[in-house]
């Protein structure tokens, strides 16, 4: 039976996420600064109240046996929306943490590595960082120049290159480095290598990159000069297969985007109402102040995006893992595209103090800007969807 409304039980669970979000929101301005690792390598910002928080996604999972509860992916997406609504600081906090899971490096080891490799490197690891992007190419993996050459004499791979935009490296004990491997039967094949931080003198971490938004998010470049690792460190599974499982997580980036979008709309709505400007949906165009018209247009965009999100999440719940690569991707394209316009558009409704630091909305705009870029830039992802719709191969449409 077609129903596009969250149930009251859904709202109860999401309400707990919202309660936590309100507490995190208060810390948001404090998180809006680049970490200084000369002071401390402990990158976990302390939110004391967090120790008392129930694990909301576990609540959502436990509720799945109840009669009128939306599927776990739908609920997770709404919980993640609350996180970004709060500009909740995002950093890897272990597998199963109650938040949008940035442990994708762990998942890569699971997907492309052996049981032994997973046990040795991932199962108990404090953190694993993943180096794929390079200064010369992010969306274009064929531009990768980091190389791994097999040294027959020492039976080691020798890795040279530079990776950039690496997340959470300072909390990591291991970095997965993607390099073009030549040797041992491989001929210039993009391959993941596990590199332990300790005992890799040629691997140097750069300073924190100062950024427009998500400033607290650990982001650095890493350079590799003659870093030597044994073949046991090479992940030997199909990289293509491993990477394809991450398509389904892409939809949750859409949820992240809509959380910021909702924050923007909520902030703007409150401000309009506080100033005595009525948002009247029955009013004709000439009765509608321009500010209200703009606001309603942004609400239209938000609603169409939200429906795209829950459709992707509903499908995910009824589709085998890895089978549906298109709708999660479409969801990210739509939602991450929408948040750009919604944050900008809402800010336009405010006066000269719109971008002052006392307005959470300015942080929301800066923090959310990455969303249409990382995990597949919207433009590149559109080509991917276009090939599906039009039935073209990559060589035909690129």
């Amino acid at each position: 039976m077609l129903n596009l409304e969250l149930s009251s039980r859904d709202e109860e669970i999401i309400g707990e996420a919202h309660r936590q979000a309100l507490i995190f929101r208060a810390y948001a301005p404090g998180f809006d600064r680049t970490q200084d690792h000369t002071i401390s390598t402990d990158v976990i910002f302390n939110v004391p109240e967090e120790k008392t928080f129930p694990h909301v996604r576990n609540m959502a999972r436990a509720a799945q046996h109840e009669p009128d509860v939306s599927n776990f992916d739908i609920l997770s997406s709404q919980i993640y929306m609350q996180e970004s609504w709060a500009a909740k600081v995002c950093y890897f906090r272990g597998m199963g943490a109650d938040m949008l899971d940035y442990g994708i490096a762990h998942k890569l080891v699971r997907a492309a590595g052996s049981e032994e490799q997973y046990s040795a490197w991932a199962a108990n690891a404090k953190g694993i960082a993943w180096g794929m992007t390079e200064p010369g190419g992010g969306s274009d993996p064929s531009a990768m120049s980091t190389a791994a050459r097999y040294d027959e004499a020492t039976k080691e791979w020798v890795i040279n290159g530079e990776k950039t935009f690496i997340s959470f490296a300072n909390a990591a004990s291991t970095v997965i480095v993607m390099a073009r491997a030549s040797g041992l039967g491989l001929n210039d094949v993009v391959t993941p290598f596990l590199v332990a931080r300790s005992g890799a003198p040629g691997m140097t971490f750069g300073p924190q990159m100062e950024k427009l938004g998500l400033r607290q998010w650990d982001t650095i470049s890493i350079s590799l000069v003659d870093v030597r690792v044994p073949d046991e460190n090479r992940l030997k599974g199909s990289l293509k297969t491993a990477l394809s499982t991450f398509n389904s997580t892409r939809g949750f980036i859409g949820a992240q985007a809509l959380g910021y979008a909702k924050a923007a709309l909520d902030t703007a709505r409150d401000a309009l109402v506080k100033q005595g400007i009525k948002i009247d949906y029955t009013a004709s165009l000439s009765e509608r102040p321009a500010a209200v018209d703009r606001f309603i247009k942004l609400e239209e965009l938000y609603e169409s995006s939200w429906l795209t999100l829950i459709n992707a999440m509903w499908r995910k719940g009824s589709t085998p893992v890895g089978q549906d690569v298109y709708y999660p991707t479409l969801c990210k394209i739509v939602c991450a595209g929408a948040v750009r316009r919604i944050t900008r558009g809402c800010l336009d409704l405010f006066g000269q103090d719109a971008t002052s630091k006392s307005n959470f909305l300015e942080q929301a705009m800066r923090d959310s800007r990455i969303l249409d870029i990382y995990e597949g830039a919207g433009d590149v992802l559109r080509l991917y969807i276009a090939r599906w719709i039009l039935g073209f191969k990559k060589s035909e449409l690129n």
Partner: protein
Amino acid sequence: MISFEFNDVQAMTQSAARKMAESIIRPLSKAQSAFRDVAYSKPLSSDFLNQLSSLGLVQSIATHDGGESASSRLVSSLVLEQFAWGDANSALAIAAPLGFVRAISEQGSARQRAELLPSFTADAYQAAAIAAAEPGLISSGLKSIKTEITRIDGGYVLNGRKALVPVAARCSHFLVIAREGAELRAIIVPARTPGVSIEPARYTMGCASSEMSDVLFKDVRVGSDALLGEEKGCDIQRLADGSWTAICAILTGVSKSAYEFIVEYVKERKVGGVVLGTKQAVAMKIVDMFADSESMRWMGWRAANQLDSGGAEATKYARLAYGRAVDTAGWIVDECLQYMGGHGLMAEYPMESWFRNTKTLSTLETAIGV
């Protein structure tokens, strides 16, 4: 819980509507949507309207008594979208009496329901329409209408001009939105009442086969029992909400026609020796057309469900669905036409008619229902 899965009634009705759209509406669409100032265009025939009527949508509402309709607004939306995919005029032909019958069924007094609904239960097509719009800017809305009623002994006198009522000449009744002083009222007026004159159909850019006419009301006398709901009054905003939801469904159908057509077109068409669809600028927008035509449909469904369930924010969702549909359908058909180059302008292809129909549909506001 959230689900996009249809129940049996929803699935079967959509399927039946689609079959009708493919087999009888599409083949006639060129004649239906031709521009009227050329001799070869044709209005919808009675035979054709009877075939549309045989799906039973309006009848399913008219046969239910006591306010709760057999046919949900979601089911209506599914039908209107599929009919519109066939041709917009077919959707309008059903959506006009749908608006009237829904209003009587849901908001009419017991006497009004008993008197009026039976004539809409037959297999044959029976037209009626809400008459709300007046000449002038759409930006003015219902609150600035001039048609008015004044109280007289035993009833009211109605005076005014309503603009471009769909299938007006076929209507047995109009539900006229008029002001009584500062208040808005809905008055049931049989078409044959002295003083009601239906002018010749005015040609509109699109949907000309829907034969939209101005209807003049000059000193039309009606009884006090002509007010929708009688002494209980009625919720006029709810009529607008229903119309907005219907327009969203119809614009979705037209958008999907254009989108599906252009996907096939750009796969075949070559420009400079290269298949048009392999150009990034073209391919990227097609992705947005796909995403936006899907989500506009869901917005209409959400509004339909909210109206059915008495949701507190039904008006908001209906208005958002309508606003989004107008913008989305507008840019989709415009962009699709662009990709066809000169062929986009030629009546030989359906795109120019979808372009015209979309614009006229966008002006409807309170003319139809769901």
